[in-house]
């Protein structure tokens, strides 16, 4: 008869020690305590308001207005004409997300080779170029820089140079996602089995031929999967980038909110959720096909 506690002990004993992770866990708990201490003690955190009747009454009123209570005339979400009008915004938002993923994907494809350690070092059979190492570091720094800065901050910066619109939003989303997709794609290339590329090289393939036949076809399915995963995230973020006058649902959402047109806000949220669900479904469908391909 095995006793669960002793079974667990023996399971733990034969496994790796948790030292660094355990220390990190304690570190995180300490950090959390400090953070909460700072937030609750530094000025008004809104903690007291949580127990005020006024707060919850205003929240209730907001919810009721969201569902059209007190709206002048028919609530927006019950008017087919308003659905059609805002549908055009949703259409542009969807296009913006696809465009952003297109930018990120194109950029990642262009830099996947120099960013892969096995390519830049010549391990895949390519002649190691003297530019390999500097290029590798340059692209990796670019990945880190673009990835670390969120889409919204990129949009706030770009709005100084570019006219507001779909292009602005797509570029802001594209830059951030380029850093993420680029890094993942480089890892895909690094994890490729080097044998086919080496065989091509031995057969006298040029650099271009080796890329087109030895690397690209085998990296492409995983690359597309990552793009689709990111697309699911990007569609959620398009609205946020739209806050910075990047057009689409986001801009309208923010304006309606500041005008207290809460029934319109509800309609926009409906479109937003429809987009999110649609993109999740399409992405899952294509990913399943990719797996069979």
């Amino acid at each position, binding site marked *: *008869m*095995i*006793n*669960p506690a002793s*079974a*667990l002990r023996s*399971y733990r004993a034969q496994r790796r020690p*948790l*030292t*660094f*992770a355990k220390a*990190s866990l304690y570190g*995180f708990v300490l*950090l*959390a305590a400090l*953070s*909460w201490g*700072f*937030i609750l003690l530094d*000025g*008004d955190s*809104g903690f007291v*308001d*949580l127990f005020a009747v006024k*707060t919850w009454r*205003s*929240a209730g009123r*907001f919810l009721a207005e969201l569902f059209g209570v007190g709206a002048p005339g028919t609530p927006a979400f019950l008017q087919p004409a308003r659905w059609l009008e805002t549908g055009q915004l949703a259409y542009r938002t969807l*296009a*913006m997300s*696809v*465009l952003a993923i*297109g930018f990120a994907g194109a950029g990642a494809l262009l830099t996947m080779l120099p960013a892969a350690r096995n390519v830049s070092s010549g391990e895949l059979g390519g002649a190691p170029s003297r530019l390999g190492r500097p290029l590798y570091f340059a692209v990796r720094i670019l990945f880190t820089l673009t*990835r*670390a*800065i*969120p889409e*919204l*901050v990129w949009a*706030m*910066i770009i709005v*100084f*140079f*570019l*006219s507001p*619109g779909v*292009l602005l939003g*797509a570029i802001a989303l594209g830059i951030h996602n380029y850093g993420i997709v680029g890094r993942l794609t480089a890892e895909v290339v690094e994890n490729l089995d080097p044998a086919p590329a080496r065989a091509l090289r031995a057969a006298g393939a040029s650099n271009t031929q080796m890329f087109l036949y030895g690397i690209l076809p085998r990296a492409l399915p995983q690359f597309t999967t990552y793009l689709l995963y990111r697309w699911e995230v990007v569609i*959620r*973020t398009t*609205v*946020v980038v739209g806050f910075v006058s990047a057009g689409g649902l986001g801009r309208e*959402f923010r304006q309606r*909110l500041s005008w207290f047109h*809460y029934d319109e806000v509800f309609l926009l*949220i409906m479109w937003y*959720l429809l987009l999110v669900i649609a993109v999740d479904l399409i992405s899952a469908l294509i990913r399943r*096909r990719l797996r*069979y*391909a």
Partner: protein
Amino acid sequence: MRFLQSSRLLTVLLAAAGAWSLTAIDWNGPWLHTGGAASFLRFLLALFPPDLSADFLLIALTASGQTLAYAVAGMTVAILIGVPLGIIASGVAFTPGSRLRRPSVAATRFLLGGMRAVHELVWAVLFVAAIGLSPLAAIFALGLPYAGILGRIYADLLQDVPPEPIAALRTTGASPLRLFSYGYWPMALPDLIGYTFYRLECAIRAAAIMSFVGIPGLGYQIQLSLHDLLFDQVWTLLLFLVAIIVAVDLWSSRIRRSLLS
């Protein structure tokens, strides 16, 4: 042959989607503002050097601390909500054959999906409209979608626990509770920890953009400096953000590596 057909179809589909998205661009309009190119150049050149005066470094450091505090606080909310919901959504803690299992798994998975569907800043804007601006509103806005993500991954990881040790435990007549606390939970824990730390990096970016609803931190300072066209200050703040992200990234990948070996 089927492989060729389906991959060719996919290529055509994806290319068509890309071409379609180009039609949404306003091709006529002037893309750049008047003087946009000049200010872009000014922005790039402001990196050499960024504002490194002691006064401003102190501001940047404080803002970094605030952003980190909001991110960690948001993550604690996400963990506290995500763990119980994830456990229910995994369905592993139910008595086998329990009639409650299927509906509760479906309901929690749906709930997690709903929390995840809405971006944290959209939650924040809605919360501010509902109960007014406060740090707690921002923290819950951050915690909600992250709980949705964490809960879903926790549920998947709990379901992926190797079945053999669980079966061995079950033969000893362990109750579902014991099965969970001595089987599923300790076996999944390393992966749960690894994934949570991986998400911390994203939470820092999310905390930074909470400035949009007026929460102090790096995003807020970036907004202020942008308004004053002080691009050298913007770069300082951006570099601080990059430094935190890189540090957390190194920390979390080190944790994941130590859990693997």
